[in-house]
């Protein structure tokens, strides 16, 4: 892998993790990836590939049955994994924000949008209540909400799914973070709303120069929004590169298989190809060899 020219915003190096519940089964296998300044980096894979574990590791919310076994998460020259709880909390919210997957559960049902958007601004940006409210108002305008006052005065159940996701995006970008983790932000939405939300994330990201780590299972979505992409299989990086290159000419058999399984309305005769058994066998062998190799490296 060639070193990026400038220092990347997020640099994950050799990140490994194991599941304590499953007899120390590895769930991340020396994952390295970096997200450059102003870059949208896609993280794709099927369920169990470890995408969300990476996102959780960055945010310091690893579940209790998972343990980080090695590696670094470099952010602004510091390793997030070594930060104390309070030091990490100082970074989170101010420099790193999250756009969650499910807008129906990501807003507190018993608090008004107003309160939920302003508390972070007050805590992390030191704004007064009045300033925070003004800022929240202009943020909602920025995500193209027509009547911000009404939305601010609403409870989440009074808003549609797409609307809630806009609010969450406004709240995340509103703290002017350097890095946004977008965890499958459009999976729960209808396609027409998905397109609006993708457009919005891209526009805000370009305007503010924010770096985005975009987690998704959908190669189509990744194609539309990501500059570069990392493909994961069973916690191991199988392919990494510019989105255009990876999609046009995938080098790894697994990436090829993923693309072949994906149905496409413009090519009804392709797609729905089950992953060939020899690809799975080869992948398993690759993983086994990798585990054996890294095991030796650790022992030696």
């Amino acid at each position, binding site marked *: 892998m060639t070193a990026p020219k400038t220092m990347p915003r997020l640099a994950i190096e050799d990140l490994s993790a194991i599941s304590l519940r499953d007899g120390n089964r590895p769930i991340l296998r020396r994952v390295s990836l970096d997200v450059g300044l102003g870059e949208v980096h896609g993280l794709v894979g099927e369920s169990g590939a470890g995408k969300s574990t990476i996102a959780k590791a960055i945010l310091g919310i690893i579940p209790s049955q998972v343990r980080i076994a090695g590696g670094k998460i470099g952010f602004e020259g510091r390793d997030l994994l070594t930060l104390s709880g309070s030091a990490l909390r100082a970074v989170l919210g101010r420099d790193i924000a999250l756009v969650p997957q499910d807008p129906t559960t990501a807003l507190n049902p018993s608090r008004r949008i107003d309160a939920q958007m302003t508390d972070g601004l007050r805590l992390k940006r030191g704004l007064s209540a009045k300033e925070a409210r003004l800022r929240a108002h202009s943020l909602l305008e920025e995500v193209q909400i027509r*009547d911000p006052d009404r939305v601010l005065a609403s409870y989440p159940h009074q808003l549609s799914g797409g609307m809630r996701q806009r609010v969450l995006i406004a709240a995340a970008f509103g703290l002017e973070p350097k890095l946004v983790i977008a965890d499958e932000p459009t999976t729960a939405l209808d396609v*027409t709303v998905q*397109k609006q939300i993708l457009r919005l994330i891209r526009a805000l990201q370009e305007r503010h120069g924010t770096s985005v780590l975009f987690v998704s299972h959908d190669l189509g979505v990744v194609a539309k929004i990501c500059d570069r992409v990392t493909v994961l299989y069973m916690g191991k990086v199988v392919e990494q590169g510019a989105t255009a290159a990876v999609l046009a000419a995938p080098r790894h058999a697994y990436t090829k298989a993923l693309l072949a*399984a994906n149905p496409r309305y413009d090519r009804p005769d392709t797609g*729905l190809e089950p992953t060939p058994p020899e690809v799975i066998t080869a992948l398993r062998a690759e993983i086994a060899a990798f585990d054996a190799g890294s095991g030796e490296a650790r022992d030696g």
Partner: protein
Amino acid sequence: MADDLLVARGLVVSYGRRAAAPVLHDVDIRVGKGETVGIVGESGSGKTTLGRALLGLVQPTAGSIVFDGSDITAVDEHARRSLRRRMQMIFQDPMSSLNPRHTIGRILIEPLLLHGLADNRQAARALVHNVLDRVGLPRNAVDRYSFELSGGQRQRVGIARAVVLRPDFVLADEIVSGLDVSTQAQVLRLLKELTGEMHLALAFISHDLSVVRSICQRVVVMREGRVVEEGACERVFSAPQADYTRMLIDAIPLPVVDPGWLNRGSAADTSASA
């Protein structure tokens, strides 16, 4: 064009006291023998309600449903039950559609005995073994419970339960929406093969137009309880006539880099209000 198997005309469905705001307004749909018809739409389009009305699981307030030449809109419970064998259903969530207290064997064998497709348990077991082989599940799955299977395997059980009765018509409601793309490919391929082999008519409800394009011959596009467009897949996808259909198709992200895609689209969807 194939002979009609299931024809619904002017279907209206309202839930509870909301007669004023029906979930389905005057919906027409037909499914030919051995034909696969996609029913697509976004959330709230009424596609699930339509499916359930076709199967008689929801009573329509108006309209008629004709199955294989006879009107089944308001048949009594007894006649309905004998119809059940010929009209089957595959569910979205295979976990909740399989009784957690019953083994896979019991789930598959009992319908066979109920409808007299097997004279005894032994014969039913043999039929079940055949169907398990066909859907690619190991025979020992008969002694398993649903929670002991993977998501893809559970959905295969769902398919097996529907086809084991040798029905003429199957309704599949969002059956691949929770699956990974490689599992989805396997399940869809299996379904496509089965409809061919068994000359099965299939109504395939989905929000994913690419999936519909890949397995359906015809498609019905729904929005807010109405049919906005209907036709052969080839025609609808190459030359959509309704603006809504065009917008839906344009919103599908293909796995191809296309820098202009994000900002293309009608002005109508760029701004939102609650």
